[in-house]
């Protein structure tokens, strides 16, 4: 009997030991897999950037940045596409920035909870999920056809403005909602009006967050292709645009064109690598600026 008890005890001890080593091994494997996944994703990102750098950097020259494409896009540069992208992005941000920020202020500071506010949130959420090609169709139907702006900078910039509007609204809303409630109460208790309080207390506090959202949406607008496909871009436009009602070339569309439909793909490849690298650098720069703005804001907040 005693022996049996002893054996049983020994047995359970062993079982437990096995159970725990099994658990430990399981945990090790799981954690290794999780970190493997993360580093795989980073590897893909690194590979993408490295690949474009390796193949694109030697295309960079003064000619590449200052010349028009020549000889069926196999020679020359991307100057008009860069200018076109600048125009489109600038136009989009000029329209959407005030609209987005003011909408966010209204939603956060004035609007009262109710069915109207719910509907607004629903609309903005849905707008954020609409595919960019659908924005392109919308721009075609409204700006190009109905308002008769034709394929032009104006149509493209307005379409892009609609596309980035929900991003700006959401980022601004988040920044505004993070301003402490006690600051608002303090200002209002001093007898200021709501708008004065927003202008002097809320906006200065929320500004870095709002700015970050806007910077990110600049990147979004600059890299967008599908939305300007039928509203703004030309396959090749021999001169720089002089009015808002002219079509332009744009970097992302130019990349698409020379990557897929050139006459001589082998000859245009280097230019395509260069254009892709310019786009990547643009995005890297914009993200770096956004990160710096945010980091500086965090530092300032910690000091206070």
């Amino acid at each position: 009997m005693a022996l049996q008890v002893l054996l049983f005890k020994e047995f359970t001890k062993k079982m437990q030991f096995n159970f725990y080593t099994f658990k430990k091994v399981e945990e090790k494997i799981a954690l290794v897999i999780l970190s493997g996944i993360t580093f795989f994703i980073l590897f893909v990102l690194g590979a993408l950037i490295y690949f474009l750098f390796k193949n694109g950097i030697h295309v960079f020259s003064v000619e590449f940045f200052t010349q028009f494409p020549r000889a069926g896009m196999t020679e020359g540069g991307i100057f008009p596409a860069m200018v076109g992208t600048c125009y489109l992005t600038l136009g989009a941000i000029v329209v959407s920035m005030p609209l987005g920020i003011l909408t966010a202020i209204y939603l956060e500071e004035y609007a009262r909870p109710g069915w109207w506010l719910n509907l607004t949130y629903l609309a903005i959420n849905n707008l954020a999920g609409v595919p960019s090609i659908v924005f392109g169709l919308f721009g075609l139907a409204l700006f190009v056809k109905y308002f008769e702006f034709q394929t032009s900078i104006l149509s493209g910039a307005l379409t892009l403005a609609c596309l980035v509007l929900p991003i700006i609204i959401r980022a601004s809303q988040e920044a505004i909602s993070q301003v402490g409630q006690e600051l608002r109460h303090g200002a209002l208790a001093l007898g200021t009006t709501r708008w004065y309080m927003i202008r002097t207390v809320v906006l200065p506090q929320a500004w870095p967050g709002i700015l970050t959202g806007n910077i990110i949406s600049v990147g979004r607008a600059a890299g967008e292709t599908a939305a300007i496909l039928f509203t703004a871009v030309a396959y090749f436009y021999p001169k720089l645009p002089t009015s808002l009602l002219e079509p332009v070339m744009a970097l992302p569309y130019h990349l698409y064109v020379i990557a897929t439909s050139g006459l001589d793909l082998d000859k245009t490849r280097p230019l395509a690598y260069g254009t892709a690298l310019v786009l990547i650098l643009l995005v890297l720069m914009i993200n770096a600026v956004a990160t710096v703005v945010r980091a500086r804001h965090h530092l300032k907040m910690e000091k206070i």
Partner: protein
Amino acid sequence: MAAQFLSQLKFKFARESSPDVFLESSIRGKQGWDKIWEKCLALISLFSVSIVFSIILFLVIEALPILSKVGFKELFFSDRWQPTSEVAGFGMLPLILGSIWVTVGALVLTVPLGIGCAIYLSEVAPIRMSLMLKPAIELLSAIPSVVYGFFGLVVVVPLAEKFFHLPVGQSIMVGSFILAIMALPTIISISEDALKSVPKSFREASLALGATRWHTISRVVVPAAFSGIATSVILGMGRAVGETMAVLMVTGNAAVIPHSFLEPVRTLTATIAAEMGETAQGGLHYQSLFLIGVLLLIITMILNGIASFIVQRVHQKNAV
């Protein structure tokens, strides 16, 4: 002259009758301005909101005529998409199936990767490391889709040709792979937020009971964050369905019903992008492309609806 005198008289009278009248009236004036400001802002936000409704309106107006000219049955159940041939065919079935194949393929890849990475960032990695990795993930979402498409075209397509001995590497598989990368940031950032918002006490309780870290993650933290993770998957799916340029460049654009992941295919979005440039405004083909747009709009709105429904239910549950 007379007016000036009158105003001076008023001034004098007002001053004598009540010393606070000026202060009060200036405040009242400012409050009045505030009301006007509020109305202006309301109008602006109304304008922003109306964009969504005008998108629906204009797409439907442009697409509607085709429903009466070409039958509903042909549009959605015929497998012949030949809008430019002599006897035009407007069967959207191959395109719809194409989108489904590519999206499903992308989800199979991106869901485990995205959720795994989110768990790693929020539960496993040291804080400093996850702070460093987050900008990299954000960068992934900022890279333009044409660049992804180009990368797929010059790197992934030749690889697929080599490994699977395909004559043409542009296929569903490559499209799914590229889409998977593009949907990752959506899934990672939303899942990570959901995991982070699980209360610390849950983890502490589980660890105190002797569970290992992995046990705590897989049986406590992930189930508690399940609704947020589900939302992230649905939104990632919306991203994949709506993606255009990358898919257009790497899937080969053959409007036929696919039978395996190694075949070329044409999605709904790629069809619009590829064909809208060559069609006459107002024609049947034009209308059919707008109908595809309406279909895409409906799909993304349903996905968004499901996502916000989940979020709302969680909020209600938390409130109770």
